[in-house]
């Protein structure tokens, strides 16, 4: 239902809602990660590999990363909007940010899904 509200009809609410949705996903994942670390207590590299082995957890970690990227995009875009009044500089910075975030997403996808 909420996804349907993230349309161009609500340009203002879309970003606001997206920021909260991604924050919620990250919060749930963080609690899950903390509990999982407490229970499994991975203390070696091999144990960490094992820790990230289950498919559901890798998908959850990937979702966390996607959420983090969207959240970062919205947040940093706001910061640039506030503090970089020169449109050309702002546009350049936003392009660098987009490339950087896509590189991170590709890297996370390779790590968690491959």
């Amino acid at each position, binding site marked *: 239902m909420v996804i349907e*509200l993230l349309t161009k*009809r*609500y*340009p*203002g*609410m879309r970003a*606001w809602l997206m920021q909260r949705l991604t924050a919620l996903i990250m919060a749930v994942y963080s609690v899950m990660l903390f509990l999982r670390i407490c229970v499994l207590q991975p203390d070696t590299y091999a144990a960490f590999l094992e820790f990230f082995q289950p498919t559901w957890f890798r998908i959850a970690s990937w979702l966390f990363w996607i959420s983090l990227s969207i959240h970062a995009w919205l947040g940093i875009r*706001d910061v640039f909007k506030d*503090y970089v009044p020169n449109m050309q500089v702002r546009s350049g910075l936003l392009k660098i940010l987009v490339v950087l975030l896509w590189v991170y997403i590709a890297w996370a996808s390779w790590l968690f899904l491959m």
Partner: protein
Amino acid sequence: MKFSIYRFNPDVDKKPYMQDYDVVLEDSDQMLLDALLRIKDLDDSLSLRKSCREGVCGSDSMNINGKNGLACVTKLSDLEEPVVLRPMPGLPVIRDLVVDMTQFFEHYNSVKPYLINNDAPPEAERLQSPEDRAKLDGLYECILCGACTTSCPSFWWNPETFVGPAGLMQAYRFMADSRDQALDERLENLEAPDRLYRCHNIMNCVDVCPKKLNPSLAIAKIKDLKFEQAREHKVIAKKKIEIKAI
């Protein structure tokens, strides 16, 4: 008592400067405005706005030791010396402590701060239940001094697009009014990305409000209403699609 006051007369000065004053106060001088008037007796070139002298008109809002407030309700005994006075930030300075509030009032006007009710006017007044009237508490008391809006970084960086805490609280004041019939229109009016959603809950507005109001809460309630409105639109849109399909 020592004061350091922002001075700028665009007809004479090339750039603003701070002027120091050392004033002997009388026992009856309790509030900052009393001291300012004492200074004005010594130097009548100092410009400031004032009117009611009791925190009702909102004319004498200024930046007092780094925090926006009303000179008439700020106790001298609460202030550290030298008292540094500047005009409210984020608005063009006309002269000394007087700022041009045109932008502020344009935003205020843009939210249509009046009751919209298309029903025929009743013989007497439009009645409200005590419960509905209570919903306006904490909203109607705003005196439009501008202390909140001019202490908001989102307004500093986006003065032309972001309505600001004072304007948004007045928008909610009419949304919350049971006699108003334009809730949908008011919410649509705030949909543009920067008008409402530039608020990032920095809460300077709550910190400085001389009437102890909470514009941040009002803004959060508008966002809740916008979410509800969007959900309702979705339901209405679906119904229309269903009717077409039949």
